[in-house]
Every structure is written in structure tokens, then in C-alpha cells.
């Protein structure tokens, strides 16, 4: 009997046993557990009895963490937004019954003409507004969206053109504008030229024109200079 009592560690007795019985732990109401008391008395008892067991301490710590978690989950649950307010209750009378009655109405053709006057005046106004507002040239908004998209993407387009050029001029180090825009539509020719100007402004390409043939030559020769310049600075 006595040996059986000694074998059974103290922490399997109440109140500490709840920390070591996982089935009980899941079912209990966390608010009913005073963790601070349990842990401090557990330590005191362990010190007093001399049964120092680190595994038991670990389990006790784990269980109390779990109880804390349960408590905080409950707290969060309590703080969930309240359900939407129910519509206010009020006595809702039954629908009124509308008996069918014939009723002569007072509107005559004269009334129709009186209000027509007003409407026709409105009609004239509408026509007038339309005549004035009729645009002769396409509005800027009809051109701008395309231009906007082009401008927004200009950085990207410059990069693309630049890598295209880098590949093209590998051998000779130079390319004619006419070769660059071969088979391109007018709008793309313009776009390419604008992009070249931007690249030249940034010093990534150099452009020069043959005054007789009007051919424009493009090189990326200056790039190295620019880069080395940057590296030096």
C-alpha cells in the first residue's frame, strides 16, 4: 500500500492532475483554472517533496500554455463584431383594401396643350445645346488614350528598343534608321524615332544624319563612354 502511494507522483493528485490529464484539459472551462496558483503550488510541492522531475515541469508548462491559449481564444470570440441590428419591431397593420371605383378625371385636351408648350420649349433647348456642342475636330480625348498608353510605357519601350539595337549593331556598331523601320507602319516609325530621341537624350545612343541622303545613322557607341563615365564618377 505504502509503496503504491510513493510510486504515484504528487502531481497526479488534485488540483495539479488537471495539468496532466489531456482529456480533462480539453473539456474544462479555462476561466475556472487559476494557472498562477497551480504552477506556483506545483513548484513548491516539488521542492518540498524533493521529487524534482523536469518532464513533469515541461508537461505542466505545456498544459498551462494551452489553457492560456483557450482563454485568449474565448476573449477574441467575445470581441467579434455584434450581429447586425434586427429591424426595429413595430405593429405592422394589415394591407389596406383598395376598392375599385370608377373615377372621372379632370384632365382635358387643353391641359395637354398647356404642358406641351413647356415640353416643346425644352425640346428647342436640347436642339440648341446639341448644335453648339457638335465638335468639328475630334476631341482630344479621342487621341489622348493611345498617347497616354504610349507615354506610360515609354520606359519599357526604350529598354526594348535599346536591347534590339544592341543586338542589331553587334557586328558593324552602326545601323541605318531606314533598316530599323523597314516594313513598319507610319505610327510605329514615329514612335521609334521618338524613342531614339529619348535614348539619345540619355546618352545611350548617338544619332547623326547624312545631309544628302537624309539617312539617319544610329550607334550605341557612346554607351560605353557613358557607362565608364558613370563608373568613374
Amino acid at each position: 500500500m505504502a509503496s503504491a502511494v510513493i510510486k504515484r507522483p504528487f502531481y497526479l493528485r488534485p488540483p495539479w492532475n488537471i495539468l496532466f490529464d489531456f482529456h480533462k484539459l480539453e473539456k474544462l472551462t479555462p476561466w475556472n483554472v487559476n494557472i498562477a496558483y497551480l504552477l506556483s503550488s506545483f513548484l513548491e510541492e516539488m521542492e518540498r517533496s524533493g521529487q524534482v522531475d523536469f518532464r513533469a515541469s515541461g508537461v505542466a508548462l505545456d498544459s498551462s500554455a494551452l489553457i492560456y491559449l483557450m482563454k485568449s481564444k474565448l476573449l477574441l470570440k467575445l470581441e467579434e463584431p455584434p450581429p447586425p441590428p434586427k429591424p426595429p419591431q413595430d405593429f405592422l397593420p394589415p394591407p389596406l383594401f383598395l376598392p375599385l371605383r370608377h373615377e372621372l378625371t379632370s384632365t382635358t385636351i387643353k391641359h395637354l396643350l398647356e404642358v406641351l408648350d413647356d415640353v416643346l420649349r425644352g425640346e428647342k433647348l436640347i436642339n440648341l445645346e446639341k448644335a453648339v456642342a457638335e465638335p468639328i475636330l475630334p476631341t482630344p480625348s479621342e487621341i489622348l488614350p493611345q498617347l497616354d498608353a504610349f507615354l506610360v510605357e515609354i520606359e519599357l519601350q526604350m529598354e526594348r528598343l535599346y536591347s534590339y539595337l544592341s543586338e542589331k549593331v553587334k557586328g558593324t556598331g552602326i545601323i541605318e534608321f531606314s533598316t530599323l523601320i523597314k516594313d513598319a507602319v507610319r505610327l510605329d516609325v514615329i514612335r521609334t524615332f521618338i524613342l531614339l530621341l529619348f535614348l539619345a537624350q540619355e546618352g545611350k545612343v548617338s544619332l547623326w544624319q547624312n545631309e544628302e541622303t537624309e539617312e539617319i545613322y544610329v550607334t550605341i557607341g557612346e554607351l560605353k563612354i557613358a557607362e565608364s563615365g558613370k563608373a568613374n564618377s
Partner: protein
Amino acid sequence: MQRAEKQTVDLAGSPPEKPSTERIQRNLALLEAALYVAGRPLDLNELCSVLKTRSKNKTKKFIKILASEYADRNTALEILELKDERYVLQLKAEYTPLVKRLVNRPLLSTGPLKTLSYIAYRQPISQKRVVDVRGHHVYSHIKLLKEMGLVVAERSGRSLVLRTSEYFADYFGLSHDLATMKRELANVFKDFAKQEKLSS
């Protein structure tokens, strides 16, 4: 048209103190004409003015004869006496579902009628309150009720206040005085609840 001419000749010749059959017929027809064109309950004063008499008793006698003729005839129409000696010519309720598709004006379905009931019962009431209690769909009901002239909206500060119109009161033969009207309405609803109980 010929009939009409004959009648007026007869009338002109009849002595005033002894009401002839034609004269009675004429008075009954006048009251019928008044009730038919008005399409709403008429009170004794209005009916007196149609008969060009000041005697309410005389008018009441005639209108009661007319109402009983209608009742005896047992057709689709009826003349009802409402509270405060008001009289109305209308279709018997049982015929409403059979012919309502021929009516040339928007008829209210149950939803808008409920909204109307509620506004009438609680008026003056803010539009917001009506929406809170009945739901967002009542905006369309309120629009319809305003278009039909049954409800009027007034701005009061930042909110819209709804009340029933005079036409509404006339249509149902209710008092124009708000307190009285509400009492009358409460009775209507009580009667309705009783009938519901009986029929269920």
C-alpha cells in the same frame, strides 16, 4: 338623348311641392351621377349641393332609396354608407380579382398596400423609419404611393417626413383630422383582424 329631352320637359312641368315619380327619379339619378364621377365617398353636404337642397334629411332619404335600389338589383356595384354619413359607389369586392386587369391605372399589390397601411397608421413618420421597419425595398413603394397621390413627402430638416394625402382620406372616407383618422384606421385594422380570425 331623346330620353333625356323628354325627361327635362316632364321635369319642367312638374309641381314643386308634390314630388312626382320623375322628380324622384331625377334626384336619384343626380346622386348616382355624383357618386359615379367622384369615385370617392361623398358626404351629405356634397350630396345636398348636387340636389340643390339644404335638407340633409331629404338627401339622406334619396340616397338611402338609391342604395337600396342598388342592393335589390344585385349587380356588381354597391352603394355603401360609411362613417359620418358618407356614401360611396364602388365595385363589390368579390368582383375585384375578376376585372382588375382592365383597370387603367396602376393598382397596388400587397407590398405597397402594407407600406401604405404602415405610413397611414404611424404618420407623420420619417421615410427612414419606414425603411428601417419595412426594409429597403419600400423605396419603390413610396415612389409609387407618391405618384398615385396617396402619400405626400415633406422635408423636415434633413429628413423626409411622410404622411397620407387628402385624396387618401377621401378615397377611404376617413377624416381629414389626423387624430380622428388614426382612430378610424385603428378600427379598420381591428375589424380586419377579426375577419382574419373568423376566416382562418
